[in-house]
Structure formats: C-alpha cells, structure tokens
C-alpha cells in the first residue's frame, strides 16, 4: 500500500465529511419552514408543530445532522416532502439516466480529445494543427445549452434523424440509445474542446524530453514513439483535467437534462427546488458532491496506475 494512496484516501473521506457538513448547514439556514410548505399556509400552528416533531425538525441540529449522515450511509435520505415517497426511491429511478449520460459524455469527450489533441501535436505548427485548434477554440466559446438547441434544430427538426428530446425508458435499448445521442454530443463537444488543448500541449511538452530522443535513437517508428513513450507520459495532466471535467459533466447534465427533457437527477433537482422539497435537494446536492469527490479520488488512483514513482512507500 503506497503512502500516496493512504494520504489521498484520508483526504477523500475528510472531504466527504466536510461536504456533508456544508450541505447540511446550508440547507438548514435557508429560510422557509418545511412544515409550512407541506401543510400549506392555512394550516394551524399546532398541526405544523406536530409535523415538525414527526419529521424530527424539533431536535438539536447536531443530532439531526448525525441522523441524516448515518441514514445517508445506509442509503436512506428521508421522505420527499413533495412526492411523499422515500428520496432514495426517487434517486434510484433517475440515477441510471444521469450516470449513463455522464459516462457516455465522458467517454466521447476523452476519445475526441485524445484523437484531436494527439493529431494536432503530431502536426505541430502545420495546417492540421491550426484547424484543430480553431475548432477547439470554437468549442470552448460555445455554451452547451445553445449548442444543444442547434443540434436539436439540425438533427431532430430538419433532418429528423434523432428524437428532439424525452426518454422512452430502458425497455427499448435502441430507442434509449437514440435518445441519448444528442445530449451526449452536446455534453462532450464543449468538454472535449478543452481537453483536446490540454492533450496537445501535454504531448508537445513530453515530446521535448530526453527519453523521447532515446526512443528515436533506438530506431523506433514515429508512431510507436508517440503511442508507447510520449502518450503515457503525457497522461498525468490529461487525467487531472478529466477528473475536473467529470465534475463539470455531472453538473452539465442538470442543464442538458432540462434542455432535452430527460428524467434524470438534474430534472429532479430542478423540480425539488421549485417545490421547496428540501430533503430531496439536500440528498441530491450531497450525491452530486460525492460523485465529484469520488471522481477525483479515482483520478488519484489513476495517477498511481500511470506513474510507478508514486507507488513507493513514500512519495
């Protein structure tokens, strides 16, 4: 077990605890009495007090925090004020939607970015490099929601190749996949534009290092030098940005799900905020934060797989 992993593992747990404290605190200082939301303004003070007691809202903050945290660890987030079903159920129904969108978006981002970034680096200074960098500059400048609308106009309204939005459910995998194409592309194009630039500059930087000269002096073909020697060494900054972008993608799904009318966590979050469904909002914000923190922990593990120098007892 490496020192690096132990240190990052401790950091991972501490970050989650800190996030849970902040999320809980923010949700509990927000004005608005849940019992008023649930029972309506015509309700009596006695009825509201009884409900607060039933919901445990009259207990001290610390014991409420602990109850919430340990419940969340068991997968229990309480009962939604608005839908009157367990929040865990609401989340379980919608999580596959959001996760498949985020993961397919990330996969497309990485593939596009690596191909474009490496191609640009290999053509450094040439017209190919110039064209790819121009494309990525455009990608960075364009907001995802606007791009989504353009994609819908072109591929759904004019060409009628793909559905403009909505989700047919997982029962028909082909239809489900078709419904995910445009949202995935909308998510990935913008992110890959950023990642392609990172890839290009990282590859160019590694190409100047001494061991690349050694590989060339060994008579290895250019492509082999690029894939076997340059790229693995260029991965660390790329993986770092991928970790950060995964956070952007997960939050990006909130916007994209609303544009494409997809029943995922992002739409649930919107609805819950509109309904002042604080229990659900709190659970969702915590979940999004946990996904992001986990993604960053996975990035740390990826560093370990890439770089043997971090695997030692001390690093």
């Amino acid at each position, binding site marked *: 077990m490496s020192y690096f992993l132990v240190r990052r593992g401790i950091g991972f747990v501490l970050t989650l605890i800190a996030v849970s404290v902040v999320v809980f605190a923010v949700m509990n200082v927000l004005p608005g009495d849940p019992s008023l939301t649930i029972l309506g303004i015509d309700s009596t003070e006695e009825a509201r007090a009884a409900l607060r007691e039933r919901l445990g809202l009259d207990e001290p903050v610390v014991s409420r925090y602990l109850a919430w945290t340990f419940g969340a660890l068991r997968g229990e987030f309480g009962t939604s004020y608005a839908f009157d079903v367990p929040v865990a159920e609401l989340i379980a129904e919608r999580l596959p939607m959001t996760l498949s969108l985020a993961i397919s978006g990330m996969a497309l981002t990485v593939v596009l970015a690596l191909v474009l970034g490496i191609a640009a680096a290999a053509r450094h200074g040439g017209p190919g490099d110039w064209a790819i960098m121009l494309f990525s500059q455009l990608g960075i400048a364009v907001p995802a929601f606007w791009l989504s609308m353009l994609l819908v106009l072109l591929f759904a309204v004019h060409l009628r190749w793909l559905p403009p939005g909505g989700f047919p459910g997982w029962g028909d995998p082909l239809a489900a996949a078709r419904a995910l194409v445009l949202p995935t592309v909308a998510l990935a194009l913008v992110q890959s534009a950023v990642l392609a630039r990172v890839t290009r500059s990282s590859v160019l930087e590694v190409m100047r290092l001494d061991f690349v000269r050694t590989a060339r002096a060994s008579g290895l*073909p250019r492509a082999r030098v690029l894939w076997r020697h340059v790229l693995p060494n260029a991965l660390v900054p790329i993986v770092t940005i991928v970790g950060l972008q995964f956070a952007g993608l997960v939050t990006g799904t909130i916007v994209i799900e609303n544009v494409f009318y997809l029943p995922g966590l992002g739409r649930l979050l919107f609805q819950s905020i509109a309904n002042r469904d604080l229990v659900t909002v709190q659970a969702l914000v915590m979940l999004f934060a946990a996904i992001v923190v986990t993604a960053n922990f996975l990035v740390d593990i990826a560093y370990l797989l890439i770089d043997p120098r971090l695997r030692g007892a001390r690093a």
Partner: protein
Amino acid sequence: MIAARGLSIRTGAGHAAVRSADLAIRPGERLGVVGESGSGKTLLALAMIGMVPEGLQVSGEIAVGGTVVAPGDEAAWQRLRAREVAMIFQEPMSALNPLARVGDTIAEPLMVHRGLTRSAARAQARELLEETGIPQPERRLDQYPHELSGGQRQRVLIALALACDPALLIADEPTTALDAAVALRITDLLVRLARERRMALLFISHDLAAVARTTEAMLVMYGGDIVERGATDRVLADPAHPYTKGLIAARPSLAQRGRRRLPTIPGTVPPLEALAEGCRFAGRCPVELPRCVHLRPAATATASGSAACHLLGAAP
C-alpha cells in the same frame, strides 16, 4: 565504415554551426571529438545518426557501410538507427522513459527490429545488462529508472544502445553528469565493449582526460570547424593548433595546485553570427595573422596528424 564528407549544418538564419566537416570511423576504431560548448561537436554527432534538430539545415554526404544516406531521409535513418548507429546521451537521469520497466525499454528495439518474442527479448536484455557489468542484472529488468543510480542508468542506456549490435556507438558526453569514479568506470566499459564487439566508438567530450583514456584518434573542434586531428596521444603530447595548445594548457593538474591561477584561453566562444569567416579561432588566438579573419586555413599535415592553421601552412 561510417563517414561524413563536407558535412555542414546551418541555422535558419544561415550561420554555419558545423562547416564542411570530414570524418571517417573504421570498424572498431575509437574516435574522440573534443571541443567547448558550442563547438558543434554534438551537432556533428547527431548528424551521424540523422537526428539533427528540426530547423537546422544539414548538407553534405553521410555514408553508412558504403551506402549514402541523405541527411533528411527519416525513413532511411530509422532503419539504420540501433542496427548500424546507436547513441547514448549526456543526461542518464532523464534519458530513460520513467514509466517503463528497464527490461521492457531494452527489449523494445529487439522486438521491433529483430522480431523477437517478448520472452526472448527479455532474456537478451538480461544478457546485455550483464555485459554492461550492472550488479544484479536479473533484478534490474523489473525496476524503473527512478530506482537506479546515475551510473546504473547509464549502463542501462548502454545496454539499450548495444541491443541491436550497432557498428558504431556515439557517446555524447556520457560521463558529464556522473561523479568522477563512476565516470571512469563508464569510459572503461565503453572501451571494453568497443574492443570485444569490434564496434566503432565516437566519443564526444570536453574532458581531455576522458578522451585520452578512451580513444585512439581524436578531432578537435572550434566554432563548427575541425581544427586539428590525429592520434590521441600524439595530439595531446604535441598539439599543433593554437586552440588545441590553449585547451591543453588550461587543464588543471595536481602539480600546479595552489601555485598560480589556472591558465585560460582569453575570451569565450562567440555566438555563431560573430565568428570570423576565416579561421574560427581568430579574435581569441594568441598568434593571429592578418589573413586569419578572412581566409579559412586548409588542413596541413603535422607531426601528429593535421591541423587547420595559417601558421603551419606555406605563406600564400
């Protein structure tokens, strides 16, 4: 036999970093190239393996084993590298891929060029490591560069360079980054390997003692010109060119310890664009003649070989 004729290397601005150099290395011969930083010795070495950096223009003729290779013919050079000409570099700390096991690094050219299987290449990598005298060669195969010392890394790089049994090994200041005791062992290793394998060695260094220990013949470079050449011991004992004389006089020796300041060659190597069109050493030379600045001296036979200096030739 590997030879260069009329080899010139120019910068984008047209300044000559190497001026029409001729050299030939016979099988098994150990040739030293001596010069200060900026003398063009590393560029000359890189040209012999087709790896002059982009942006520089190489002209002239390079022949490897009798076939002429165009300086820019990357495909041809790729076939020659490792198998005909191999090279080790100055900085063993950064010259190995930090993410690859040493055994895999050495095995790679064997698999690519010789078509060996992974296990056969690995067995051969082990033998090569053993040949370089690295302690515990078997264990090294699975180690990463950061787990090795500088001297061990240079041995790994030597093993890598030897993998495909090249006719010529170019060593560009292979000991500069190593401490003195390790440096001696590496130079001795290079000599032993060159002898045992009948492999030619082109040894680039600014260290006259290392060149004396390693090579039979030497070239002295200044400002992109080969100013003197000959048998190593004779050039060092009886230098003919004023620059070579200055270089030898500037060597610190124990006998001079504490008595006086070290003699130096006055001034520093000027930038390429400021070098004289005639003799490159003009301006720093203690015995300069009026024509030196404009007229490039031709190589003239000397007791130890030849030197390019107007003082040695007949007056025009």
